[in-house]
């Protein structure tokens, strides 16, 4: 069912679109085009000497075992963050949606972490889990569990996953809660006639939540890919020994710290392709099958 609005004026719509288009071009298309251009160059940081090297930067990256390792870390990290953040949020939303006492207070409190900046969130986690100054970190060591995320890669990855997921729970919670409240009460009540709460959730509520879930899945994967930089930067700097170096962190390290503009641009281009693919897949194929 498509409605078409016919504008008699040919100029006005473009005029109305112009501010948004200008912003998109200046802040999205221009930098993207520059990234593609730089990914084909070999250049010193000051731009004094430039060689055009075709796809050499891409070849170097894709054959670099460290880059492949970073892909592995990113896949584990993103999957874990998305699963953890969405799972926890759904659980909380279902609980907050039930008529428990003080539900309003819980709802408000659950939204707070979203307002915390990533770097600040990471500092909070640092003060909890630092092996020598953190409350839990010290406690674990006192209990004889060797906890040192500065040397243990698995623990470091676990910590950045927890911190990143924690920050995203609020956002997911809000959307899940809104989704739950949009489900007509009559449907739930009808189902209550012959199904327990568990059955009711899986057969009625969960499928009806699927549009929200799929939207959140994309948002969470994109979040894990791009917005977790601050958490990783403040907690582990990508270490120990590259255990928490995700693709976006590597772009930063290679571009900003190591001043390898070509290599870093090539990585950005690859990331850009990944995100475009993910988003296209989402809206082209998966969303169509979702029950609205």
């Amino acid at each position, binding site marked *: 069912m498509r409605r078409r609005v016919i504008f008699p004026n040919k100029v006005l719509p473009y005029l109305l679109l112009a501010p948004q288009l200008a912003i998109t071009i200046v802040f999205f298309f221009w930098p993207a085009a520059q990234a593609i251009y730089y990914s084909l160059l070999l250049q010193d*940081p*000051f731009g*004094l000497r430039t060689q055009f090297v075709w796809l050499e930067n891409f070849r170097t990256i894709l054959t670099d075992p460290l880059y492949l390792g970073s892909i592995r870390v990113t896949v584990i990290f993103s999957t874990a963050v998305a699963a953890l953040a969405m799972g926890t949020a759904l659980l909380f939303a279902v609980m907050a949606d039930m008529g428990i006492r003080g539900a309003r207070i819980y709802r408000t409190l659950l939204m707070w972490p979203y307002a915390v900046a990533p770097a600040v969130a990471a500092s909070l986690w640092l003060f909890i889990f630092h092996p020598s100054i953190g409350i839990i970190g010290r406690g674990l060591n006192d209990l004889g569990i060797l906890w040192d995320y500065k040397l243990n890669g698995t623990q470091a990855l676990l910590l950045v996953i927890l911190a990143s997921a924690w920050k995203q729970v609020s956002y997911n919670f809000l959307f899940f809660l809104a989704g739950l409240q949009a489900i007509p009460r009559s449907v739930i009540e009808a189902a209550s006639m012959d199904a327990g709460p568990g059955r009711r959730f899986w057969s009625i509520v969960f499928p009806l939540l699927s549009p929200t879930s799929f939207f959140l899945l994309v948002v969470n994967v994109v979040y894990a890919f791009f917005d977790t930089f601050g958490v990783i930067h403040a907690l582990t700097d990508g270490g120990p*020994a590259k255990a928490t170096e995700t693709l976006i962190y590597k772009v930063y*390290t290679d571009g*900003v*710290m190591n001043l390898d503009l070509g290599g870093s641009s090539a990585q950005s281009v690859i990331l850009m392709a990944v995100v475009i693919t993910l988003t296209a897949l989402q809206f082209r194929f998966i969303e169509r099958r979702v029950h609205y």
Partner: protein
Amino acid sequence: MLTTLRFCRIAILAIGVILVSSLVPTPGVAAQKVQVEFWHGLTQPLGGILENVVAGFNASQDKYQVNATFKGSYPETMVAAIAAFRAGNAPHIVQMFEVGTATMMAARGAIKPVYELSKETGVTIDPKNYVGGVRGYYSTPDGRLVSMPFNSSTPIAWYNKDAFKKAGLDPEKPPRTWEETWAAAKKIVATKAAPCGYTMAWPTWTQYENFGAIHNVPLATKANGMDGMDTELKINSPLHVKHLQVMMDLQKEGVFKYGGRDGKADALFPSGECAIFHGSSGMRARVVREAKFNWGVAMLPYYKGTPGAPTNSIIGGASFWVMTGPKRTTEEYKAVAEFFQYISRPEVDAKWHMDTGYVPITLAGFALASGQGYYIKNPGADIPFRQLTLTEPTENSRGLRLGNMPEIRVVIQEEMEKAFQGQETAKQALDSAVQRGNGILRNFERTNRQ
């Protein structure tokens, strides 16, 4: 949902546009003075003290005005300066950390060496005023200053006197050698005088760059890169392997504790957790403020019987670089040169040293601080300077000039971490650090070929 998101995005961008436009400098009040832009990377309280130095220069004369702006951490300041240069709008002066020296020096055309500035403007800036270990780091092989030395520190040993006493060690006799350091650390842990015997901050700086200088062994060929870009790392020698192996063994015994990269281990000393700590002399103010125990400082140790050890240590910190631009005038360069001459005055140097804990970089500055009784009132505050000037710098202790040194520092830290995790032996870790580091050096050579 999506409309809301899109709206948010526009709102954020709009705010961004407003912010950017408000950052465009408005014409200053003192428009008749020659304006000099100076970008620095020092956080508070150091940044404020630096801005006071600048204010002192502005007040000392009425022709020039230096505007100091904080641009974030050192790497952030470096990236900001590079971006500004590419846009044809570089600041006149930028503060750059010592490991960025090779990158800046290779950017001939973007920078104006200090010796050239001095010659063109007729303002004398004599390299001989500076301590050898400071001057050498920022000079051409034939001794001409390329950047202006300023805030310099050097790693020293910090130790907890209370823990020493508790462990039955003489608190007035800090360990002089690594053998004594390890013995003391073991005893401290065995007697439970402290939970950790030894740790270090800035692992590459303390355990490789300065370890090499003190033992008079090279970090890299070609005089640590000073004599050419075709340099190669040399940190997999038997001495280096032995040193890493000892640390790995002591880590297993719980005597040594790895505290993390860069300055992340700094907290372990003032908190009382680690009784012996190798870290920057610039920690002094923090230790004074935070440590609730008696402490002392000493020079970094050396392995007994190493020929030539101990040699002078090398510096860390930053220097000031003069950047070029299409719109520069002779007057502006003159202003920069006058500013440089001002900051190298003994009274400015001595005050900066006493206010911040950085080492005095001129001999006259040290003499002045000494004459004011600073080292009598602050025992041990002269140790960094004495260690830095212990011997005449050799080609292993003059400094480093390795391209992409920040990246090499990270590589070395990563390989150390792998060794401490037990993923690699000491030899494997250092071989791999050398191999990866050489790759980085070759890339630098290739992108910066003249």
